[in-house]
């Protein structure tokens, strides 16, 4: 499996066509606003992903793969298919995790240390600057068409666990989400090919 070949765009053709009609960021506006406005155009997404987690406690990285589903503005689903099925759903601020027949539900607000993981991705996809800035200190490195969002958690209890979330992309498409933990562990989620809706 060649990663570069899978590393493809997420946008749906239909919505990509609609994009220029709704989002016309002016040239002199804030680059972060411009990027988020561009991202916010997408109302729906369905892609594959692969994820690699490097944990010091383990002898080798944990690899997993599956699908990501997104419905604007606040429904994000991560379906891990391999090595073992697991579904994470982030909807309206509630995270539910289903493994096997068991589902656990967590209020994100009650676990500030967990917020960075999915909220970073959801808020970025939704182009929700207010939500991003509520949870993170945000910095944009743009070398158009490629860009990198640096998201550092504001909540002290989250910052004790997570150093930074890096989201990279090209134009309106996300490429990778990388989580750097405070203890040196990290995970890299790479977005793959687009799936039919």
């Amino acid at each position, binding site marked *: 499996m060649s990663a570069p070949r899978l590393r493809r765009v997420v946008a749906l053709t239909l919505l990509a066509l609609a994009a220029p009609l709704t989002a016309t960021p002016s040239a002199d506006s804030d680059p972060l606003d411009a990027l988020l406005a561009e991202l916010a155009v997408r109302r729906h997404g369905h892609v594959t992903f692969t994820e690699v987690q490097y944990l010091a406690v383990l002898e080798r990285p944990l690899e997993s793969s599956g699908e990501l589903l997104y419905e604007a503005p606040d429904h994000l689903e991560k379906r891990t298919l391999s090595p073992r099925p697991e579904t994470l759903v982030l909807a309206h601020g509630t995270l539910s*995790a289903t493994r096997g027949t068991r589902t656990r539900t967590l*209020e994100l607000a009650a676990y500030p240390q*967990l917020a960075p993981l999915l909220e970073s991705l959801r808020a970025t996809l939704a182009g929700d600057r207010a939500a991003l800035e509520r949870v993170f200190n945000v910095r944009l490195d743009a070398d158009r068409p490629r860009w990198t969002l640096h998201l550092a958690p504001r909540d002290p209890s989250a910052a004790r666990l997570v150093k930074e979330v890096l989201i990279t992309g090209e134009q309106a498409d996300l490429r990778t989400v990388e989580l750097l933990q405070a203890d040196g562990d990290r995970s890299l989620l790479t977005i793959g090919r687009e799936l039919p809706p």
Partner: protein
Amino acid sequence: MTRAGWTGTLLFAVLAALAASLVVRARYTADLSAFLPRAPTAGQRLLTEELRAGFASRLIMVAIEGADASTRARVAAALAQRLRANPAFAEVSNGDAAGLTRTADFLLEHRYALSDAVTPERFTSEGLHRAILDTLDLLASPEGLVAKALFTRDPTGETLHILEGMEAPRIATSEGVWSSRDGQRSLLLAQTTAAGSDTDGQEAACVAIRRAFAEAAAAATGAPGALALRLSGPGVFAVTSRALIRGQVIRLSTLSAILIAALLLAAYRSLPVLALTFVPVASGALAGVAAVALGFGVVHGITLGFGVTLIGEAVDYAIYLFIQSGGRESAAEWRRALWPTVRLGMLTSVCGFAALVPSGFQGLAQLGLYSIAGLITAALVTRFVLPEWRPRILATRDLTALGAGLERLLERLRPARSALALLALLAGVILFEHRTTLLSRELTDLSPIPLAAQELDAELRADLGAPDARYLVVVSAPDSGAALSAAEAISARLRILTEAGVIGGFESPTRYLPSPGTQRARLLSLPAPEELAAHLKQALAGLPVSAARLAPFLNDIEAARTAEPLTPRDLAGTPLGSALDALVTQSGPATTAFLPISPPEGGELSAAAISELRAAVVAAMPARAPETAVTARVLDLKAEADGLYAHYLTQAVSLSLAGLFAILLLLILMRSPARAVRIVAPLALAVLMVAAGLAAAGERLGILHIVGMLLIVAVGSNYALFFDHLAEQPRGDVPRTLASLAVANLATVIGFGVLAFSSVPVLAALGRTTAPGALLALLFAALLAPRAARVPA
């Protein structure tokens, strides 16, 4: 004043001071203790225990309304934090993570005794492989961020497994704290350290919550008015009831005192005489409360409520004295001519109330004693003290003219007396028609809590999944170990019933502390070091984990293998300990464990479900019960309480009948059978008419209606006795006596009529029964009086 007068006054002053000191020092309560039986059955004893000090009785449900969800959530979190620092609260939960993390350390420490996943299979190589694989999944998920820290000590994930089992799963959350299902309220559950029956303690807890809320709201919003706090729960109800009863007693007593004073002022045209009229009333109330304090140790709020009723009755004595002796040279003549009649009336009332004293219903017994002491005192003060004071006072207005008018009116009404038989028949028919709905069956009918507050309580309970503690399995055992192991056996059966949908769910103390036997079995299932190391080596094959990293795991297992099972004492001071305390109580040599059962979604348990539940509990118990003195029973507290109430009601009815019989006997002895019947007939008719009227109005008769009827007889017997007395008197006495009866009756009707408008159901019931009853009693007594009295001598 005569020498005897001085002596009487001095004695009166000393006794009054003594009574006052007793009243001041008495303990007052408004909790349910007045309704609790003195000689309970086993079920009632549990009910009593649960109502007094049980888990449910110590819960305060807190709701925050207004503003927006995130403000509410912030205030809820701040409120929880403040309350957790307050020793008045054993436990405060609002669904926030703080509650769980405080528990986590303790759980990690004792995970192998507490996790129900610990079995011998768990530590075979396959078991370990599966468990570690599950934990790796968790590490890869967002929760891994938190779970990671535990991995080397707890690779099989016992700590999180225990936490999962303890979470309250059914409560909705919003912004990280519990909320109502409609999202309009943030919710907290506070468990007080004070018992539910400790109304002062509950009041202090309510005050503490309100203060903490005010501070938290002010700190969070700057505009605290935007948020509202609502409290509910048994303790809150007790506090509210007490305040409500106290407020109404003060307000209504004042109102009826003012109205009666106005009436008497119009009748006497003399302020000093008016003041004197209240002396027997005040003395009676004082003596009544003092007697109850002496006899029962504690005075119930409901009993105090009858201070009002005493105004209505005790005021009569002075009215008779002042109006009837209006034109006489001295009070001595009143004593000779009329005191015997008043005395017999008083004795009649005392007979009626004495019947209440043996009641198992403490509220009723207190009322009986209160009335007896109050009436005797009021009568004695009227007889021995007032006349001594009166000669110094100007004569009161002569009401002979009013009496003569009344006499003419009665004469005109007299032909209607034949219609009374018809009225009696009609009343009988109405009562027969309503025979099935005649008596109140529910203890809650006595509750002074407004309907809106009861509805809020039900809503909060539903949102919080708080057990309304209606259904309980109660285990009694000689020690906590035996109680817990029985609770475990029962839990296993209850789980089956829950899955079958027979019950909605249940709570068990063993969720927080497994029985010593179970803990020991779990600890014994932990393998020895070499064996574990070997299993682990095999288990890790193919997994990205090296055995060397899991050295802390091996150490912890080895430590756990030699650990003793946890006891309730080990849990003290942890949130688990508070949760356990709520469900296990230690009293003397016995331990009682409670397993609250929640009914399936939105309802109650059907009779079939309850019998299934009973069967399950019996099935869980059979082998152990006889030799270890462990018992378990299913309790429907509402049925138990209603049964208790029904028992009281039946008892009140039969005691009242006994009282009536005693009155009849007294009258027969003091007068003659024929006269006794003549005296009792109008009273019986009045009671019959009132009962029919209430039934026709859709009211269900409860204990206080019965008491009201007893009061009709007590007050009315005075009227009937006077008419009986008049039959033997010279003509000239009739108008004045009639006037005194009319004034006394009006005073009674005012005193009780005011009560009829009370929002406290028990007081209202009393007023609605006695006010019309007293009026009818006078009317009927007048109409049924022997004709001879009307004929001029």
